[in-house]
């Protein structure tokens, strides 16, 4: 038997193989994970809630089933966690409004993970309602970046990034409206995968902006993220955004390399706002992709970052403002300052402006689709700045609503709806992780994942671990 307390940085699939072979006990693995959480969570703030008792019961059940030869799949007996937007026990969305809320139903993705045999170990920190940036004065203490605890781990799936990067879970499910899976993945040095819109059910997940919201996994490897996706994907009539068209992705889809793959680089979109250290890491990643046989070419998108973010934010603010209107009327004191102001700003977006933004979105979709006729994937950094220091208090609204927004290149895939993956591409000179983002055609998630997996394997940056938490 392998010693479970040495495996906290192992990949989900590596421990899964050992569990299946009965070389490792799910009970010991869960116990070791709980012990690490107990030790590190006070310093890193990844978890709001830890389900120690039920997780141990699930682990015992997994041990019995696997022992009886009833292996359910790669998640069976593996401790994973969910962002606190997924309905499951205490579900707060990081908000004082829901501080005492206990969900009466489980989110579909939770139930599907459970059916796949996962050990559900806890609920993870989030920006308030997946939007307002976490601060040191929040109702819930902020999650901290494992590479530098004075900095943000990126959001809004803050705890998911931290838990995976610090060895406090073997995978985590986040949500992504403008980048909230991929941004913490980039800042924490792990993999974040936003599938094509509608492939993972959002039933039972507290929304931010339903037409842009996605569920997605954060993991230590692309193969882990793929396995997590495969365990929970599928049409769900309870989710109005769930796609009738579904895809199946398995390990065989990740092999084959990228020789001849056409990778387009939309420099006009991302380059003007990018930090030089991040650009250098990204250029090195492109060289590696070329060495691996990919055909890397410039591919002008014809859209600026500001155009894409403006369209994404107008849609988000309008939809989120409408969702929060009843509570803004009845319990305004329950909102943090930044979120409360952002939602009021959302109420200032007239319906005509929202409809215009939807029209602009359709145009962006056409332009990206056009680019993807001649390219198999598009490559860009995930975000053009390094993780910020955690602010002492709420940031002014003009930091978010601005004509010079923080360069989050993730918005393009949310507005487009196609798949996107952030994979580590090495540290910036400051020692903080940088993410390479690959995005592709809707429902062609397999190509994006295959390219990300090939790069990950060749570059080896996924083996980087934060030294503070050995």
């Amino acid at each position, binding site marked *: 038997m392998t010693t479970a307390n040495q495996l906290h940085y192992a990949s989900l699939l590596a421990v899964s193989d050992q569990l299946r072979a009965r070389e490792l006990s799910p009970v010991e693995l869960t116990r070791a994970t709980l012990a690490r959480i107990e030790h590190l969570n006070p310093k890193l703030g990844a978890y709001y809630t830890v389900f120690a008792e039920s997780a141990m019961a699930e682990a015992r059940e997994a041990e019995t089933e696997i022992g009886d030869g009833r292996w359910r799949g790669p998640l069976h007996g593996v401790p994973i966690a969910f962002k606190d937007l997924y309905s499951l026990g205490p579900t707060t969305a990081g908000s004082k409004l829901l501080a005492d809320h206990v969900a009466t139903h489980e989110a579909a993705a939770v139930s599907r993970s459970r059916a796949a045999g996962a050990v559900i170990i806890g609920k993870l920190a989030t920006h308030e309602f997946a939007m307002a940036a976490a601060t040191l004065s929040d109702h819930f203490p902020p999650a901290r970046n494992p590479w530098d605890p004075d900095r943000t781990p990126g959001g809004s799936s803050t705890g998911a990034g931290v838990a995976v990067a610090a060895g406090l879970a073997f995978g985590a499910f986040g949500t992504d409206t403008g980048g909230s899976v991929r941004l913490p993945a980039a800042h924490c040095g792990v993999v974040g995968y936003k599938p094509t819109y509608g492939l993972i059910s959002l039933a039972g997940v507290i929304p931010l902006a339903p037409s842009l919201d996605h569920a997605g996994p954060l993991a230590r490897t692309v193969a882990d993220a793929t396995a997590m996706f495969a365990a929970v994907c599928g049409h769900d009539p309870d989710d109005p955004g769930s796609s009738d068209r579904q895809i199946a992705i398995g390990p065989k889809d990740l092999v084959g390399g990228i020789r001849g793959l056409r990778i387009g680089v939309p420099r006009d979109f991302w380059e003007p706002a990018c930090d030089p250290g991040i650009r250098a890491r990204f250029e090195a990643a492109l060289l590696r992709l070329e060495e691996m046989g990919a055909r890397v070419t410039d591919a002008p998108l014809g859209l600026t970052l500001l155009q894409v973010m403006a369209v994404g934010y107008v849609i988000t603010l309008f939809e989120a403002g409408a969702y929060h209107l009843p509570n803004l009327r009845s319990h305004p004191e329950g909102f943090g300052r930044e979120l409360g*102001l952002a939602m009021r*700003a959302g109420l200032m977006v007239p319906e005509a402006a929202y409809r215009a933004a939807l029209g602009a979105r359709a145009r962006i979709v056409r332009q990206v689709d056009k680019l993807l006729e001649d390219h198999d994937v598009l490559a860009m950094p995930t975000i053009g700045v390094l993780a910020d220091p955690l602010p002492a208090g709420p940031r002014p609204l003009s930091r978010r609503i601005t004509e010079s927004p923080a360069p989050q290149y993730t918005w393009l895939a949310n507005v487009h709806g196609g798949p996107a993956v952030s994979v580590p591409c090495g540290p910036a000179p400051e020692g903080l992780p940088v993410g390479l983002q690959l995005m592709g055609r809707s429902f062609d998630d397999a190509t994006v994942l295959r390219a990300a997996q090939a790069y990950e394997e060749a570059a080896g940056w996924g083996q980087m671990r934060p030294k503070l938490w050995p």
Partner: protein
Amino acid sequence: MDSTQEDERALTTRLAELGVSVPQDQVEELAAAYPALLAWMRIARELADQPMAPGAET
């Protein structure tokens, strides 16, 4: 009345119509961000109205 004061008044009036209050100490902050919000809406509208470049239609 300058444009900032006009924005503050328009914002509080619109929100009051929706039954939403704004703490007095936050009105200025909301108004400070309002021009950028208007710019975002203008950018989106212009993009929606802009014809696709020749050959760019799929």
